[in-house]
């Protein structure tokens, strides 16, 4: 078996920004003293005249991004998820989203997989926060190919976009010619017994889980939900009707994330059992990322377990 390519989605973000910078002179990138970590440093190196560091002041960075956007630029503003969606929530809400400005938020270091830095930096609330803002688009790519595609799609979208990237290197899932469309779920595998809807780094875990389930004779429908908002409701409804039960998997609090978004649709349109897999309303802790993902149940084994629970509720 060929070696699997592993890349952090934050690295793909940095590379995609450079690619974009070459094609589009209208793109500016802002960072709040984390360019080395968010990987916007690559853009800074390539286009120093279009890169602005606001220093450790995320609230101001979001406001500056908004002001720049009103003068006709497409602005990427980057920091960790904790500070982009958390600290600067209200600046994003009032000065970017309310006026519907062309600011694309590149939030890296999302979720438990931040690892050793611990709970203060492991943001598992950002999807919930961003989902609650009218007009906000939320993209949560699963690998480096999808991360690049998300960046390119975000710049074409008119209005604010929140892009969620990870620190941990994750296996490549998609081919180079992968087609990505905002708001359009990707069915990775058809099946009839249970649907798994995964996002971000949980997509790879879901692929592994599906193999285990299939080996046990359970037919799995597997959906990659890279866009949390606007959610592909049709895909959710179709899968719910087809398989009669759903498991959601995300590296985020079970409150307010993909699981809730799916439940919102299922409850109203076609009630079937939904079992949510995510961080169980608790704070993270320090440790190696991969180890933490297992500790917090964010792995294929747990998806298998949850899938069986979902099946038992049918």
């Amino acid at each position: 078996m060929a070696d699997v390519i592993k890349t952090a989605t934050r690295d793909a973000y940095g590379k995609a920004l450079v690619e974009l910078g070459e094609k589009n002179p209208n793109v500016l990138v802002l960072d709040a003293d984390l360019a080395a970590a968010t990987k916007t440093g690559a853009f800074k190196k390539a286009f120093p005249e279009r890169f602005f560091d606001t220093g450790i002041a995320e609230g101001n960075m979001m406001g500056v991004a908004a002001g720049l956007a009103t003068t006709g630029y497409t602005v990427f503003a980057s920091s960790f998820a904790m500070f982009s969606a958390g600290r600067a929530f209200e600046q994003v809400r009032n000065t970017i989203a309310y006026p519907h400005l062309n600011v694309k938020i590149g939030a890296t270091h999302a979720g438990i997989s931040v690892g050793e830095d611990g709970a203060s930096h492991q943001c598992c609330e950002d999807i919930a926060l961003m989902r609650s803002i009218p007009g906000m688009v939320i993209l949560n790519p699963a690998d480096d190919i999808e991360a690049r595609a998300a960046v390119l799609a975000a710049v074409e979208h008119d209005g604010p976009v929140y892009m969620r990237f990870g620190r941990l290197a994750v296996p490549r899932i998609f081919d180079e010619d992968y087609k990505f469309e905002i708001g359009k779920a990707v069915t990775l595998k058809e099946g009839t017994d249970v649907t798994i809807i995964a996002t971000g780094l949980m997509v790879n875990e879901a692929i592994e889980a599906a193999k285990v389930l299939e080996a046990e004779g359970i037919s799995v429908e597997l959906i990659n939900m890279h866009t949390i908002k606007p959610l592909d409701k049709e895909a959710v409804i179709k899968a719910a009707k087809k398989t009669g039960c759903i498991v959601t998997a995300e590296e985020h609090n079970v409150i307010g994330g993909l699981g809730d978004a799916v439940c919102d649709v299922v409850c109203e349109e076609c009630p079937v059992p939904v079992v949510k897999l995510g961080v169980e309303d608790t704070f993270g802790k320090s440790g190696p990322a991969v180890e933490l993902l297992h500790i917090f149940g964010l792995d294929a084994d747990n998806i298998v377990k949850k899938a069986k629970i979902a099946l038992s509720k049918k």
Partner: protein
Amino acid sequence: MDLNSKKELAKIACNVRMGIIEGTFNAKSGHPGGSLSIAEILTYLYFKEMNIDPDAPVKADRDRFVLSKGHAAPALYAVMAHRGYFPVEELKTLRKVDSRLQGHPSMNYLPGIDISSGSLGQGISAACGMALGGKLKGDAFRVYTILGDGEIGEGQVWEAAMYAAAKKLDNLVAFVDNNNLQIDGTVEEVNSPYPIPEKFASFGWNVIEIDAHSFDEIEAALEKAKATKGMPTAIIAKSVKGKGVSFMENQVNWHGSAPNAEQYETAIAELKAVLAGLEG
């Protein structure tokens, strides 16, 4: 400034004050105190200083204005109406359902608003972004913003102040409407921002102190700001909250309450008398 221009501006400022009273009275809510205190600054900016065109409210080379103290929207709307952005009669729709005149300025509702504002501390950051955008494009437009003296308690103001100086945004002018009152009392009682000029100076700003109600001083300060290169300018404008309406002056309770019918009549009568004096 010659006497005639000054008189003309004073008349406009008086009309702006009537617009503020008209708007808040009809809305039965709003913020007259901190609106009345910036009538001269806004009048000077919109009638003398800024390169703007009410018929082309988003033309690319226009000077920008950000009302960081967004609750003073009644003043901004009044000056825009008198400048020709929309009919003066529309001021009566302030804060009503389907009005373009939202409680705090919204660029999606009203053309001519350069950015939505109202959540304190955020406007100055957006103004920094506009000034930076102008410099990047090589455009000559200038950016003006007005902050409240209570508003500068927001940490973000100082994030922006540090940033504007670091990036040498000499196309940016921030007024601080120093009317000395905020909702919970005098600014000293609540959480003193004083000394304000020294704070901005220590952040690397060119600082000018003026009487907010003197057109001569506003003009001189803006000229100095234009002549200052390599740093942004802060104009600390000592003002009277509620200025021009006797019973509202220096009264903290007029921060966020509207005049009733009787108070409305008294206020309008006072302002009409001032206008008649200027016209006589």
